[in-house]
């Protein structure tokens, strides 16, 4: 069993603050939108909490953002620019989750420090972290003080438009919050990925299990991976 360091400390701090914050935002958000049907806390308290946690999350986002901006680990977010390769790899990953995993096939993706996301994760997190999350913070900020930002709110077509965007992204996150932890249990053991998010180290199965259709000239048979980083 090998261990490789894939989640640096700032990313882990950001992740867990973000996780707690997102759950708080979803709960207060549901309470705010569904007053009368859901009664977890008073509407006013839900609004106040939603605002505060929102600001904490915006600040927290910058831990993530600045870390990656000034670290070469930003490679993990690099998009695959060859569309054929991207779709082929994504499809292979999808086929693994939808079929191969049931046959006991090995995961076609192999984690390394600069390659921790599989092709599906990679594209999802580019969209989530660089598009959905910033838009959610931005619309949230506008809705926090509509009067202060009235010029901009009107520019986007009014408070209902801004709110609809905010709610649409909330709807995406409401589904994400169930699927994300589940996918996190699909490592080589159910807790492998989760432990890694606490310790930083991902346990890698025996090298013998590393498979994949090799690319020409790649001494490693894995198609989209670099040599394993040994844990320091």
């Amino acid at each position, binding site marked *: 069993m090998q261990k490789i360091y894939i989640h640096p400390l700032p990313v882990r701090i950001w992740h867990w603050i973000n996780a707690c914050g997102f759950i708080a935002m979803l709960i207060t958000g549901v309470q705010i939108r569904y007053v009368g049907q859901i009664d977890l806390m008073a509407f006013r308290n839900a609004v106040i909490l939603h605002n505060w946690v929102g600001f904490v999350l915006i600040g927290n986002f910058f831990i993530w953002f600045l870390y990656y901006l000034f670290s070469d680990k*930003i490679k993990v977010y690099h998009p695959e620019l060859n569309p054929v390769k991207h779709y082929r790899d994504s499809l292979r990953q999808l086929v693994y989750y939808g079929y191969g995993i049931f046959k006991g096939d090995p995961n076609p993706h192999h984690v390394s420090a600069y390659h921790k996301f599989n092709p599906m994760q990679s594209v999802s997190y580019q969209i989530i972290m660089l598009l959905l999350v910033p838009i959610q913070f*931005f619309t949230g900020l506008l809705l926090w003080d509509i009067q202060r930002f009235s010029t901009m709110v009107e520019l986007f077509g009014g408070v209902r438009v801004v709110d609809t965007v905010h709610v649409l992204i909330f709807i995406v996150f409401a589904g994400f919050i169930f699927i994300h932890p589940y996918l996190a249990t699909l490592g080589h053991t159910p807790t492998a990925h989760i432990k890694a998010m606490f310790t930083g180290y991902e346990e890698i199965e*025996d090298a013998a299990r590393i498979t994949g259709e090799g690319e020409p000239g790649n001494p490693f048979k894995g198609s989209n991976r670099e040599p394993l980083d040994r844990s320091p």
Partner: protein
Amino acid sequence: MKYTKLIALLLFIVVGMPVLAADNTLSKEDETVSEEEETLSEAEFALLVAESALSKNDRKCLRCHDEEFIQYESGIHASVRRQGNTEAPVCTDCHTTHRVRGKLPYKSATGAPCSKCHDAIFEAYAVSVHSQIRVKDDEDDAHVLGCPDCHRSHDVTAAATENQLKESCLACHEGVLLAHEEWLPNAGLHFEAVSCPACHAPAAQRKVDLRLYDNAAKKRIREKEGVPQFESRARAVDLEGKGLSALALQSLLREFNRDGGEGNTSLRGRLEVSTGVGSHQLTDKGRAIRECEYCHQKGADPFQSVTISIARPDGRLLRYDAHTDVLSSAVSIDSVGGFYAIGATRIKLLDDLLILSVAGGISLPIGHTTVKWLVRRRRRRGEVQGGMEHSGDKPPSSPDDRSAAE
């Protein structure tokens, strides 16, 4: 790597800068407000006299009282008189020729002379919190608060004229915005979108009025004198005659946008009391509505009646009924873009999408786990075989290998 940083930085600039810039754009709106105080030229004054609503006899007053005359002519009473309403008051209905000390012709006990026409409103007012209050006038004489204190004496305007009545409230109740801010989130926004009586007259009936608003001029749209369009346009799109649906409202707005340039006309929503009588049933603040939940939930009472309105040339409102679902239809995202009360006017379609998303989010892991469990034997076999293939077709030899295979 460089380009990812660049994209991220650009994104930050695009998203971040407008937020930082927003504060500066705010103050511009305030500057345009105080322009109206203008004095009339002689020619304009002569025209005002020629078109006056007053009889020849009443016009004698303006020889000395020209200031009051100008105020009167700008008001709603002169306006309805010009439209043929002979009940509307003229100078001598409040002042008599020989009563020299006729400064306060208003009788607080009976509401005369206003109550001659507005009796129902005076009855509601007479039992409200305001009717018991004594205030001092300009000459330091105390009097019981009455109609002219809010509605003025000579330039009485239509109740719906811009923010005039709200300003009357705020003229006496100084610092109430700060007091509201202590407990009410987004108090300033509530002041803009909710009329004072909507909360302070708890017994009254409430409704939503969506006002046609001119974005360029930053005020509500008034119909032009002699060119009534609103009602005929509204009737034309209201195919069933049961009030405007979300689609009908969208086409009505499109009609108005055709005159005023694309995107110039929008709807500004306001939560208010349904009737003039209701808006005078003010109680003391301890009994005002304070619960957020009163408005911010689906089916809340104030959102069960919706009207679309335009200001007539004299400032009074012309209203047309709309279905309540114009507030919750996905079609209205654009047309009713400027009005949204959290919870109460939420879009139904988004609720359905949320259910779909959560149901998907829950059922996917359950379904996947179930299939994994059903095929657990096959999976284990596959894992063992895979392990053997890739370790040179040797069976797993160490305990480590075996556990990995399991």
